[in-house]
């Protein structure tokens, strides 16, 4: 098997068995990046020199027996909204176009402790606002399955890099579907963990109460293994949760007998592409055949998720993005006349259209006189959505549905109609509003040859049920994935 076709766990095992060196693996993937970047543009920054240096260090530690973990020596790509000490971190925005952090995010540090070799920073929608990676200030990423289509977003660079073998796995962040949807569009596995499971320290915030870091990877085994490394209780993040059940790989069991799976009828109504629907229901059938109990149910309030999400996320974003003012770091306009003009011009020139749209939306819903009617009401609906899920999880172990209504749209089709783009998040965002874990796994290919994603949603802290179900499904489904020409 070619190095590039290995999963992260397979590669780490090969390195451990001295079949492959860390340097060989790093060089192979850097070569692939060189070959494919002009076609896909997955990265904002490739740190060739840093990666090779790190590869050497990690190899020495592996040889000395200091690094023995299941990801030691495996090259990884990091979404460009996670701080990396000394390495450009732009959020794919002009306003942070020159920003080099002085510290690394906790999730990245956890990976480094496990012997990860960081290849570079992946492209994304600007400040994670978008569903296509087209709002990046540095140009769009293209879907490796068909470069005329988007990779999804906002972690589109990470998903595409995994699909194109431009890394062995990647980190993404998910505020309203930003890991699961691009994973679905690019035919890879993605997990958005329970809120509080992975530290947000060092993640440049979009919607702080919804943001969560998670893996994008080639299969469910990698997914569970990466989760074990990045999940941690971090005292630097007040919203970080202390969990003792983070032995995610223990759930890699090919058995779903008696697993109760609910299918929300509301997720299969108008707007869902028939091919997506058929593929998702086929996956449900396969799980049923393996002994899962599958039944349909009504999950209420689905239609309120989108307005609720865009109110809360935009409100938080409008405040989170205030610090980008051109004073301490980042982009500052050339010519200005006084302080306020400097703020105004730096921010007008530094932010793209979608970011500005959400800052305006968020500022509006927090304005005096509108706060109760919009922001507070959204918080109340958020609590009701959580309650609807609580009721569902009283009956079911896992909720099964599509990740997105369609497969990846063509480049340029979404930006012209933001409302349509927002509606594409309908199946993913309620998971963030309720703080739940959600997993995306490929379950087929449509007639255009584009991958379809299956979404599994669990109750809070029930990642293991998702991993177990996904693992069993993966076994039933068989090998997936267009073989990337390496």
């Amino acid at each position: 098997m070619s190095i590039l076709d290995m999963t992260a766990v397979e590669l780490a095992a090969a390195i451990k068995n001295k079949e492959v060196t860390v340097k060989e693996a790093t060089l192979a993937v850097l070569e692939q990046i060189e070959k494919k970047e002009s076609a896909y543009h997955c990265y904002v920054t490739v740190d060739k020199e840093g990666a090779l240096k790190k590869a050497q260090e990690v190899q020495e530690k592996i040889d000395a027996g200091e690094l023995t973990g299941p990801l030691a020596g495996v090259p990884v790509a990091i979404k460009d909204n996670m701080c990396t000490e000394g390495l450009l971190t732009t959020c794919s925005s002009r306003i942070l176009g020159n920003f080099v952090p002085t510290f690394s995010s906790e999730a990245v540090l956890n990976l480094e402790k496990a012997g990860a070799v960081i290849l570079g920073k992946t492209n994304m929608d600007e400040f994670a606002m978008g569903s296509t990676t087209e709002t990046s200030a540095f140009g769009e990423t293209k879907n490796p399955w068909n470069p005329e289509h988007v990779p999804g977003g906002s972690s589109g660079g990470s998903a595409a890099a995994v699909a194109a073998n431009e890394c062995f796995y990647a980190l993404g962040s998910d505020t309203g579907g930003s890991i699961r949807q691009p994973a679905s569009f690019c035919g890879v596995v993605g997990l958005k963990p329970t809120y509080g499971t992975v530290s947000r320290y060092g993640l440049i915030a979009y919607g702080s109460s919804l943001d969560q870091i998670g893996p994008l990877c080639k299969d469910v085994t990698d997914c569970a293994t990466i989760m074990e490394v990045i999940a941690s209780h971090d005292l630097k993040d007040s919203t970080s949760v202390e969990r003792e059940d983070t032995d995610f790989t223990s759930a890699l069991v090919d058995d779903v007998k008696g697993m109760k799976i609910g299918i929300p009828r509301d997720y299969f109504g108008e707007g869902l592409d028939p091919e997506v629907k058929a593929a998702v229901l086929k996956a449900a059938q396969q799980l049923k055949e393996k002994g899962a109990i599958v039944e349909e149910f009504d999950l209420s309030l689905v239609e309120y998720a989108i307005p609720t999400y865009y109110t809360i996320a935009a409100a938080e974003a409008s405040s989170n993005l205030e610090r980008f003012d051109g004073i301490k770091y980042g982009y500052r306009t050339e010519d200005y006349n006084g302080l306020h003009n400097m703020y105004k011009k730096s921010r007008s020139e530094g932010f793209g259209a979608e970011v500005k749209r959400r800052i305006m939306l968020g500022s509006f819903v927090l304005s005096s006189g509108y706060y109760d009617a919009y922001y507070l009401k959204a918080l109340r609906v958020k609590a009701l959505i959580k309650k609807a899920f609580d009721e569902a999880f009283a009956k079911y172990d896992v909720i099964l549905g599509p990740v997105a209504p369609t497969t990846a749209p063509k480049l340029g089709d979404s930006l012209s109609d933001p409302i349509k783009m927002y509606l594409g998040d309908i199946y993913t965002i309620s998971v963030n509003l309720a703080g739940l874990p959600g997993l995306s796994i490929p379950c087929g290919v449509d007639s255009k040859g584009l991958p379809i994603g299956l979404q599994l949603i669990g109750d809070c802290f029930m990642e293991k049920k998702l991993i177990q179900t996904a693992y069993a499904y993966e076994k039933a489904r068989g090998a997936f994935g267009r073989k990337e020409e390496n």
Partner: protein
Amino acid sequence: MEKQYETVIGLEVHVELATKTKIFCGCSTAFGGAPNTHTCPVCTGMPGSLPVLNKQVLEYAVAVGLATNCDITKYCKFDRKNYFYPDNPQNYQISQLYLPVCRNGKVEIETEAGKKFIGIHEIHMEEDAGKLVHDEWEDCSLVDFNRSGVPLIEIVSEPDMRSAKEVIAYLEKLRMTIQYLGASDCKMQEGSMRADVNLSVREVGAKEFGTRTEMKNLNSFKAIARAIEGERERQIDLLESGEKVIQETRRWDDNKGESYAMRSKEDAQDYRYFPDPDLVPIVLSDEFLDEIRAKQPEFREEKMVRYKEEFDIPDYDIEIITGTKHMTDIFEAAVALGAQPKKVSNWLMGETLRLLKENDMEPEDIRFSPENLAKLIALTDSKSINGSVAKEVFEEMFKNDVDPEKYVEEKGLKTVNDEGALRRTVEDVIANNPQSVEDYRNGKEKAIGFLVGQTMKAMKGKADPGMVNRILKELL
């Protein structure tokens, strides 16, 4: 008949808490330090950084709330106050609007008309901003974030005060309470206590409040009193001439003795407050509140009662000593070391107050330790040194907190108790001053004073004046 006006005043008092580290990060709160040396990614608002609440801040805030009879909000939250300014690194300040930690309190003050309660609307926790340094030569401004994230509480009173005197009494009361708690040193000059004055006037007997203004930049009790007088007159003049008071924020210039408008209500910013999603809600348990309650110190009123019972010192002394936390600490520690309370009090009321006044210092600035004061008193008790030497030693203690035992030893100030040596000196003095001896023997009692003086001079002050007196009388 001329109209009579009543002044209605409410205060917003900011108090810097005495924590070692900042409110949301581990940086030092120490004053001074080169610009931007007490900083980290959190208090400079770097992307990706997150705040974590310093528990000590919460403890102090709750302690102040309990001491001012507030209801403690058992489920409280932090909110973001959004506004752009370069001293505010995130362009939002983390504060509390919707669920402040304390509400509905009151403190009792003494007024000319007797005791009166001033209501406390709320106390909330928040972070301080950085400091802008304007470089006149370079035509630019620089930001120092050392103060950014220093913890503050804001104590918002009800509009219950009616005069500058009541305002000062209220501020004194707050200052004393907070100092006793050790929650802050409350130094107005250094900015660890700051007050904004909300003031309106209305005709005596009117039910409705008049339009109020908010006065900022008040750096001393005197400035506050002057600003209140000035603003009261300004508003009355406006009303008398048929104009209206405009709701606005004004800045007091204490040198000129006048204020000018900073911004009106129309320019008021919309701060778009909302709960900070980076900080989880704070749930205060009964156990936590009980712990804080148990740790509350003996406050001034209780101390005054106890001192009166336990110590034989005048009421006036008690009032002065308990008037500052630092003085009571010195007093109680010295007494605990065995010094007689009356003597400790005398040193504090006499020499200490005199030297403070001479050096233009506040009682908080006293540097000598109670240990050294107790030692000094012991030295006089044992007649090792006499009164005038003791004063000399005390001055050194006041300046440099010297150990009086060592100092007396090193400088050779110990009283000479060798009766033979003293007797010989006295004999010399008698031999050399026949006129005074003559006067004394002729019934001029005063003349002995001169002879004592001469003896002390010859002994370089190191004699016990009582002993000198006795020997003189014997020999004469």
